């Protein structure tokens, strides 16, 4: 579904991604772990072209999306993204946060979008917050809404960049629960996280990124039981 070939990204003189290649298949849940600054966010943000790769190719559903001529707005409609800092639209109600994109992009009528939003809100237990503003919600609630907002677009794949890292500990569970449920529906997911429990339980593959490269890739069981490279062993000894 997503094929990445020899992806490089350089910020000014900072060579952040040093040749990343990977193939994400439909329905997979790829969990990416690694030390801070290793390029995990940059990699994820390249996938939906929030960052423009310096070189390399990204194919999405058979289309070369790194091609200059591709309409990236159209591509992004099919790739949901959830941010560490939620990034709900401060000037809109929860309902409008969810319905804004599908309505403005003329994918749904206002009624259809509202109906869909209410169904999704109900699924995450936040139906009564439809008319609230983001500032009136807790971090955990905001992140669940952010997930709903992405889902309202009926994406083919969901990208998560440390979705629980900005949350108070007691709110991490509610967000992970929503993500687990989403995984069970068969959604293709790429998740950057420090939640090793989630990686073990939900991941179909776990990747270890370090210094701009994918250093190791394995099934969760093997990844945690039999780490191969020393950097991963060291990393796991710190986080487990």
């Amino acid at each position, binding site marked *: 579904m997503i094929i990445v070939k020899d992806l490089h990204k350089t910020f000014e003189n900072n060579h952040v991604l040093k040749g990343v290649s990977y193939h994400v298949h439909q329905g997979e849940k790829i969990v990416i772990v690694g030390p801070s600054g290793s390029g995990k966010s940059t990699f994820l943000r390249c996938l*939906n072209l*929030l960052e*423009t790769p310096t070189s390399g190719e990204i194919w999405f559903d058979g289309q070369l999306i790194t091609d*200059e001529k591709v309409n990236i*707005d*159209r*591509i*992004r*409609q*099919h*790739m*949901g*993204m959830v*941010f560490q*800092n939620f*990034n*709900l*639209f*401060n*000037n*809109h109600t929860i309902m409008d946060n969810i319905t*804004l*994109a599908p309505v*403005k*992009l003329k994918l749904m009528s206002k009624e259809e979008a509202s109906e869909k939003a209410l169904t999704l809100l109900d699924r995450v237990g936040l139906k009564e917050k439809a008319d609230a*503003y*983001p*500032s*009136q919600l807790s971090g955990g609630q905001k992140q669940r809404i*952010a997930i709903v*907002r*992405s889902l309202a*677009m009926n994406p083919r794949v969901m990208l998560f960049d440390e979705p629980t890292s900005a949350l108070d500990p007691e709110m991490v569970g509610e967000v992970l629960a929503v993500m687990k449920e989403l995984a069970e529906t068969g959604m293709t997911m790429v998740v950057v996280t420090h939640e090793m429990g989630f990686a073990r339980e939900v991941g179909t593959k776990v990747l270890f990124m370090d210094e701009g490269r994918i250093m190791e890739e394995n099934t969760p069981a093997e990844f945690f039981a039999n780490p191969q490279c020393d950097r991963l062993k060291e990393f796991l000894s710190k986080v487990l």
Partner: protein
Amino acid sequence: MLSSFSQKDMIEGEHMQEWFDSVGKKFVLAFVEGDRWKLYFKGLGVTLEIALFAAILGMVIGTVVALMRLSQKRNGKKTIWARIAGVYVDIIRGTPSVLQLLIMWFIVMKNSQNGVLVASLSFGINSGAYVSEIVRAGILAVDKGQSEAGRSLGLSKAQTMIYIVIPQAIKNVLPPIGNEFIVLLKETAIVGYVSLTDLTRAANQITSRTYEAFMPLIGAAVIYFTVIKILTILLDKLERRLRKSDNR
């Protein structure tokens, strides 16, 4: 002691009387005689007219120029529009507004019969540069995550600006825009250079006609001050209302 005190009092009383008489005469001379008060208000009318047109024009130019300056190519480089807008802001900020007015008046629009229009254009083009800086800062102050979230949902750059970034930027820019309008209102006082009779020039003309400077000049100052005070109060009210409905 007592008698000398009362004597001094009397003398002071006489002085006061004289002073009041002369002030009264000066007041009549400056404002009443020949219906001169009408000249101040006619001048104020010209001042307000120019300031208002210039403010509207400045707001439009400022917003467009701010968006031009913020435009980027896909690789993050400046567009040609950003460069043009940058040059415009540089030129306006790097030259005196009196000179800009004179150039507009004697060179660019020397055939125009409508002095207020020429002055409004000149001040509007001038104000646009400053407004563009304010708007640019207001847009940049909106968290980058807001537009990234918009773009990640597939909204275009323009849609993200219109529905998400600009509504939040407006709250940031309102106070400095109000300030810019007040600066603009006072700066119109230089239109006397091109023989338009605004409030300042009206006061100046009355001064030279009556050989009496105090009343006309202080009178004009009081009028400017009052207008700007009213404006400030209105802007404060608007700002407070916006902050109350602030849902951030």
